């Protein structure tokens, strides 16, 4: 309660001398159009937005502090809760960082599966962003057309990891378990269904005249300003800057697959939607190149000191029992040093900066969340526009509260 009073007092002071006819509109912290708990206090003159004040921190859990207490495999569950629309991307980003620090080389089979799941997650995230954007602008059916396919991807994740939302995919040194036998055929089926669905979605929503006129040129940002604000991912590419961590600083096998980077022109809400549509198609292209080539072999690296041995062997062999005990009690051993590893998550560059002193837990973890960097440009993007357009702008930015606050 104290917190709300303080905030109200704060805004009362900032907007003390409102000109005649100006109004304050409180959008959030719990509002259908904010998708997650974040608040915008908007000063309007008639229908025009004069000033905006973003208040964040409602979902702050201080994962960076928790990371200093958890061991490296335990922190994985925190990454689940950052961008909760595409959890495997966060998991993979974290695991890759730790593996790079420990210099573990995982088998190709693991990397292939990780890449396929990464791209499926990207599709999942973009479906939500574009679909919900339609819902916010009053077109419900587009989302429903695609949601069926998103559900199919969730079922794959469920079979693979046992969870739908908080997947905790992968472990340091490999995956928790091997892929199941129908993995490839099921993904091919999903792709087969998704392709016409995307075309249908495009015709249904994006070629719709009302949607077009409500998003074209709305909430735009120039390439220079986007770079100055630290934009990355689809929002930056919509402004016409072809940066993608998968191309610029390739990790896994992204330098070996063939895909294009879609770019927009004026960084408006429509361009962001279109860039995401095309990215889904490019993700499907990447999956198609990988799905038939998953090599046979083990699903983890040969690192008994950091990868949990299979349970049935733990109960009968002494070595496995010792390793099991050591890993559970003391965690994996990461040599002292620092590492920054960036991956292209659904919203942009997701970076993990880890400082290790050789202990069970990192000395310091820092997460570079793409949402946090680009959301600070929101007041500038909506200034001078209509109040209704702020909804379109915010939806197209794909701000995820869990990632914003971390």
């Amino acid at each position, binding site marked *: 309660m104290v917190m709300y009073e303080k905030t109200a007092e704060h805004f009362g002071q900032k907007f003390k001398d409102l000109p005649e006819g100006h109004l304050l509109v409180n959008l959030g912290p719990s509002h259908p159009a904010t998708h997650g708990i974040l608040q915008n206090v908007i000063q309007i003159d008639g229908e025009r937005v004069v000033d905006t004040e973003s208040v964040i921190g409602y979902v702050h859990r*201080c994962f960076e*502090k928790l990371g200093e207490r958890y061991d490296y495999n335990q922190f994985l569950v925190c990454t689940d809760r950052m961008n909760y629309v595409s959890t495997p991307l966060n998991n993979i980003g974290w695991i890759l960082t730790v593996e790079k620090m420990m210099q573990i080389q995982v088998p190709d089979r693991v990397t292939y599966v990780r890449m396929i799941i990464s791209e499926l997650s990207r599709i999942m995230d973009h479906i939500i962003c574009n679909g919900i954007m339609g819902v916010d602008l009053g077109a419900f059916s587009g989302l429903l057309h695609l949601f069926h396919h998103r559900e199919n991807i969730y079922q794959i994740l469920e079979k693979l990891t046992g969870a739908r939302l908080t997947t905790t995919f992968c472990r340091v040194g490999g995956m928790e378990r091997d892929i199941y036998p129908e993995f490839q055929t099921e993904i091919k089926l999903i792709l087969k269904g998704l392709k016409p669905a995307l075309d249908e979605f495009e015709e249904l929503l994006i070629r719709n005249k009302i949607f077009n006129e409500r998003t074209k040129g709305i909430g735009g940002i120039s390439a220079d300003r986007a770079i100055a604000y630290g934009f990355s991912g689809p929002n930056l590419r919509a402004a016409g800057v072809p940066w993608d961590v998968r191309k610029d600083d390739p990790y896994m096998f992204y330098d070996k697959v063939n895909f294009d980077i879609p770019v927009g022109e004026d960084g408006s809400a429509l361009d962001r939607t279109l860039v995401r549509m095309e990215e889904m198609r490019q993700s499907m292209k990447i999956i198609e190149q990988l799905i038939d080539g998953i090599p046979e072999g083990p699903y983890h690296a040969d690192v008994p000191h950091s990868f949990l041995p299979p349970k049935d062997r733990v109960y009968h062999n002494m070595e496995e029992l010792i390793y099991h005990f050591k890993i559970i009690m003391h965690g994996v051993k990461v040599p002292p040093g620092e590492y*920054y590893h960036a991956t292209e998550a659904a919203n942009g560059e997701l*970076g993990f900066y880890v400082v290790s002193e050789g202990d069970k837990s990192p000395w310091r973890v*820092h997460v570079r969340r793409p949402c946090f960097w680009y959301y*600070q440009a929101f007041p500038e993007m909506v200034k001078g526009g209509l109040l209704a357009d702020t909804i379109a702008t915010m939806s197209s930015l794909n701000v995820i509260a869990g990632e914003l606050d971390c």
Partner: protein
Amino acid sequence: MKEKLTEFITTRFVDCLLPQRDINTNLLYFSIQKEKLPEVVRTLKDHPEFAFSFLNDLTSIDWLGKREPRFEVIYLLRSPKLGHFRLQLRVPVGEGESVPSLSEIFPAANWPEREVFDLMGIPFSGHPRMERLIMPDNFVGHPLRKDYPLEGPGQDYLIEDLLTIHVKEDITG
């Protein structure tokens, strides 16, 4: 490229660099005096060849009980011209000292600097609005500091002490 950049920085900014320890890292890093930070960053940003025009990351480390001075503010710059090469600048800061803000040079530094102030308690001078960003305005303390109790305010012990407290209670009572 790395050598060229190292040579440029070590010759151009002789009086700005601080002696630094060896770190096992994947980044090229330099320790910079905090007063000289805006000058160094601006030069690197406007340099025609290097052009570190993108502020990639901004964070801080608390070295309580390990190193002096206590804090380090970490800047990560990226140069799209140099094939998206990342350069790390480290600024050691003591308790109660402030760092010049970069929000004039990079608008992107606005929120991350407020976040560092909020969670680590390092103020930035020249910032347009040095207030808490994530925690509520009436919050006491800075959660990411090493001496802040993990379980929150109102508890004057750290989690390591928790075990010993309970053991003592068991013995005496």
